[in-house]
């Protein structure tokens, strides 16, 4: 295996590690919206039949689909083919976002570019590049009852993403509730990050090194 191939495998493994841990946060009955990227992978690890997936392009009751059953007109928000669960329903974009913005989604799991130490995120634009896409990110941030980030702890180049302050344009003034990475789990309480869990084999020193944001060590708390 080449180094590049190895890196890709590692990257994929890390993404699945994060997704699998994020799935543990979901206890039915609940309505969940999964963002593009790592959050989409979370679906593979949900085994609770009372966790219902909502996708903003107009479907409640998203399931996996086998290759042979793929339908080009049945996709999720990432435009990937999906299946429909028993009891699924379809609705138009205005009705779908009315669900999101009206507070009817229990949990949104999202990816980010940056998150600051108050839990405010940036996930839709990079300064200096053309700002051309926002999709449903801002809607989910204001609407979902609980927002969980499923993200790699650092960027590909090793630079940090959990910062004192976002340098990219923020998505909302609302703080997320939880941050899940391949290294650790933080809860956001009163605009403060609390480290509540380390992933297996990770030390708090490593987390400190790879996190710019201030956080409280709450590992010992019950």
């Amino acid at each position, binding site marked *: 295996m080449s180094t590049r191939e190895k890196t890709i495998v590692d990257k994929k493994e890390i993404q699945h590690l994060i997704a699998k841990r994020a799935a543990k946060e979901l206890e039915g009955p609940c309505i969940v919206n999964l963002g593009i990227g790592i959050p989409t992978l979370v679906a593979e690890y949900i085994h609770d039949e009372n966790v219902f997936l909502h*996708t*903003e*392009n*107009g*479907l409640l009751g998203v399931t996996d689909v086998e290759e042979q059953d*793929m*339908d*080009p*007109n*049945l*996709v999720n928000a990432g*435009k990937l083919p999906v299946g*429909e669960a028993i009891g699924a329903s*379809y*609705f*138009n*974009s*205005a009705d*779908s*976002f*009315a669900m*999101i*913005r009206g507070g009817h989604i229990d949990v949104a799991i999202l990816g980010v570019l940056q998150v600051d130490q108050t839990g405010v995120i940036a996930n839709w*634009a990079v300064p200096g*590049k*053309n*700002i*051309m*896409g*926002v*999709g*449903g*990110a*801002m*809607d989910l941030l*204001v*609407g979902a009852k609980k927002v969980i980030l499923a993200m790699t702890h650092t960027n590909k180049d090793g630079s940090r993403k959990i910062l004192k302050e976002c340098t990219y*344009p*923020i*998505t*909302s*003034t609302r703080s997320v509730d939880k941050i899940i990475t391949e290294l650790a789990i933080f809860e956001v309480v009163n605009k403060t990050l609390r480290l509540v869990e380390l992933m297996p084999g990770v030390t708090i020193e490593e987390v400190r090194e790879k996190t710019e944001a201030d956080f409280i060590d709450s590992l010992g708390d019950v």
Partner: protein
Amino acid sequence: MANIRQDIHDALSCIKNGHTVMVGGFGLVGAPLTLIDGLTKKDVKDLTIISNNLGESGKGLGILLNQNKIKKAIGSYFTSNRDVGEKYQKGEIELQLLPQGTLAESMRAGGAGIGGYYTTTGVGTQLAEGKEEREINGIKYIFEPAIRADVALIRAYKADRLGNLSYYKTARNFNPVMATAANMVIVEVDEIVEPGELSPEEIITPHLYVDYIVEAQQVLTKEGVVNK
């Protein structure tokens, strides 16, 4: 009540230079591929296109973009077509980016006679710049005006001859909302059936919203867009 048109060019004759045109679909899913193709063959310019995306590079609305027929685009996710950024850099296109929920809701408002409304989406972000902020019951909102268009090009699954429409799974998306918010609504469908063949429960867009119907000549398959 809708008119059925055999000729795509004929169906699109109401679109004029400078018009604002809504185009349904989420990416290529539910996009009126036949009508978009017709638009690329029509001599028209300075269009304002309202659509979630601008197709992909060289596909769907992407062709129209490369033909320089689009003066301005209003949408939520232009990132899916890398050509948009280039045009934007060259100053060849004006872009208005809206959160996807705001895009959909503003169209609904436009179709429902609402002048504008207050949403929490976008408050405190760069997309709220220049927008009126207002506190209602202690919560901060921004004002968003309704959106309407001269013409809407949409895709449905089946139409009966009256113009009632049903949709196919997630190919529904923006189509029913756009049907309410334009002066002229042109629909392409997979199948035209007799009144009564669609049950009242299946009818998502009642015929009062529909002006012209054409049969789809292009369809989205696993292998991409193909001629029917």
